């Protein structure tokens, strides 16, 4: 069994539809730690030691957030800036995050086709997420294909529900080591239709 840690960050949780449902699903999983960052650090005063301990004590680190201006909400950035200290996360042979898994669960208003070279957003979503990907690499972590939900404001015939249910399967598979990690790394993005769960 792997120890899964979900960091949730949504400054406007009160208005959230997609991420709220995803969060509730994450919380329903047993033996999974879920941290609501904006609730934990409303004044952005990250407790660095505590968070580093948390990271040390888990094997899979998942960041869940809505895409804001082609990136994460600011508290995630603050969190990474402060917590991934030199010597702790990188720059030392025994860096604490080595061989851990990093995953993202994100939502966007733009549609999947918007996020393509011919689309309205010009670049595929992965391009916008490369800072996270390279952060994981620098810390010697395995970076999974992001679990993404597009068109968050549109009505999609129950697809949201499907996405939420599959989020639960995603997390529990990580916990139970039934997710095919190699396959998950090889994918471009993950969603309800292509989740590589073994068996």
């Amino acid at each position, binding site marked *: 069994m792997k120890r899964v840690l979900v960091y949730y960050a949504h*400054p*406007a*949780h*009160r*208005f959230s539809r997609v991420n709220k449902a995803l969060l509730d699903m994450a919380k329903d999983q047993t033996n999974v730690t879920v941290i609501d960052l*904006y*609730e*934990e650090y*409303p*004044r952005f005063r990250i407790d660095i030691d505590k968070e580093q301990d948390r990271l040390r004590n888990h094997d899979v680190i998942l960041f869940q957030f809505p895409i804001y*201006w082609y990136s994460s909400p600011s508290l995630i950035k603050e969190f990474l800036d402060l917590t991934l200290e030199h010597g702790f996360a990188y720059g030392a042979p025994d860096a604490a995050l080595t061989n851990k898994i990093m995953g993202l669960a994100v939502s*966007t*208003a*733009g*549609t999947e086709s*918007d996020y393509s070279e011919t689309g309205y957003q010009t670049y595929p979503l992965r391009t916008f997420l490369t800072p996270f990907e390279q952060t994981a690499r620098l810390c010697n972590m395995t970076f999974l294909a992001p679990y993404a939900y597009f*068109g*968050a*404001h*549109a009505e999609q015939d129950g697809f949201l529900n499907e996405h939420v249910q599959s989020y639960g399967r995603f997390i529990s598979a990580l916990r139970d080591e039934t997710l095919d990690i190699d396959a998950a790394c090889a994918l471009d993005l993950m969603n309800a239709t292509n989740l590589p769960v073994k068996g």
Partner: protein
Amino acid sequence: MTDFLMLSFLFLAAGVIAVPVASRLGLGSVLGYLLAGIAISPLLSALHVDVVSIQHFAEFGVVMMLFLVGLELEPKMLWQMRSKLLGLGGLQVGVTIVAIMAIAMMFGQTWRVGLAIGMVLALSSTAIVLQTLNEKGLMKSDGGQASFSVLLFQDIAVIPMLAILPLMALPELVELASHTTNDHAGAGDHGTDIDLMGNLPAWLQGIVTLGAVGLVISAGALLTRPMFNFVASAGLRELFTATALMMVVGIALLMTLVGLSPALGTFIAGVVLANSEYRHELESDIDPFKGLLLGVFFITVGAGVNFPLLFENLWSVVAMTLGLIALKTTVLIVLSKIFGVNAGDKWLFSLGLAQAGEFGFVLLSFTVANHVIPKAIADQLLLVVALSMLLTPALFILYDRVISPRYLRGGEQEPDEITEKGKIIIAGHGRFGGIINRLLSWSGHKTVVLDYSSSQLEMLRAFNVKAFYGDASRPDLLHAAGIDDAEMLIVAIDDKQKATEMVHYVHHNYPHIKIIARAVDRQHVYELYAAGCREIIRETFDSSVRAARTALEMLGTRKFDAELIVQDFIERDRHIIREMAPHYDPDIPIHKNQALVEKTKELMKAQESELLGKASANTTTSRAWDFSKRTKPESDD
């Protein structure tokens, strides 16, 4: 019954009218009561009211006051005061008695009469002085502490005086008394005293006395909690009050029975209870009674002035009174030099204690009853005592308005020599300034702290803080603290007016200095703004806002949302103040200030919706996040 109602009404009405008037005129409540007493004295004599016996009853207010003083004083502090108590107090009483005795003998009195007069006049008025110091918030200052030491010693000294006086009876007076019917019988004691001790041998009396004090201490320490727990089980608020009163009255009774001063006894009980969890309960229960009784007491002093006798001997009484005040002041000034009472407070201390006191009345009637002082002299002395008490508020005013400012400007340089100059001067090191100082020092800044409470400062110095004694609002002290080359002044004193004056002074004389000022309330913000300060911090605003934020959180608002709401609120509130402040004019009362009234009306509209909870449901920041407000639900970014 009607008599009682009539009398109560008379006293209450006199106080209710006179005290606010006196306070408004800046004269203090004590003078108000005294004047009320003078005003109703013709009525009282027309009604044949026995003012003296009311006064004896009202003296119980003094007993209560000492109980309250004791409550504020932990045993440790009392122990720290011991040298002042014995040294300063002892010398004041001793030297004053000898000096008055010498003068009396120069005027042809025998040494016995002289000594008795000395005792009567050496004591000061605990009631007036403590009440006034409390009212002015000066109890904790150096002068306040010194005054308190002396007063406490005097209260204790009354006991041996009462023991010695009967031994000095004049043979001629005793003779005379035995011929005429003794109409002073019992004048010295308050009502019918039961004398438990009369028949006991001296050593046994000693044991009983010590036992009584021991009883008060141990009962106070051991019985208070179970007793209050027991009373609390009834769940009636007034029972607490009754219990508190019962305690005080009981202790006073016990002390009287064994021949000790009730004031001393309740004081000791107060000290014993100073650390107890019921301290505040006791304080708030007893306080109104103390206030009322002292009020009655002061009224009776005013009413007791025998005007016909006064006018007959006007010049001699006035001369004696002024002489007495001058003499006592001189003694006190000399002593305060010896004991190093700080410069500014020396005069407060010396003028404050220059009157004769309520114990003077007690001792006078006692001396007459015991044939120590002839009645004719005693009657005049009674006037001197009353007049000197009547003049005390005037002396405080003299100190406040004339002596203190003049003395401070010219005067001897007795506040601490300030050796360390800092870039940051913090004026006032109470709860507010203390935190500022801690934080700035912690982040590596050099500060200079000014405060007028020397006990505070001693503690600070123990922690290696550069702290200096003195009234920070005084230009010379600011100068000594290095205001000329300071970078910043933080005004953290709690006296509104002084804070404003200080800001005004520094802003106009040292315009380059950054000033941060503590404001007590909104109006004070405007005053400080008008005085030239732009960094004004309301002393309780931030903590109130934080409390509200916690409330929101506990009501289920997300912490980050609560934070945004609070930030918004703060910004709105600051905005209002910023808009209003420039229109404030210290010379125009707020309601007559047209510009301010207009501005208020304008801002009221915004505020109104705020009060009605109609402020936009969104915080300003989260406006960007609420998609429900958008016309088109599609993504647009």
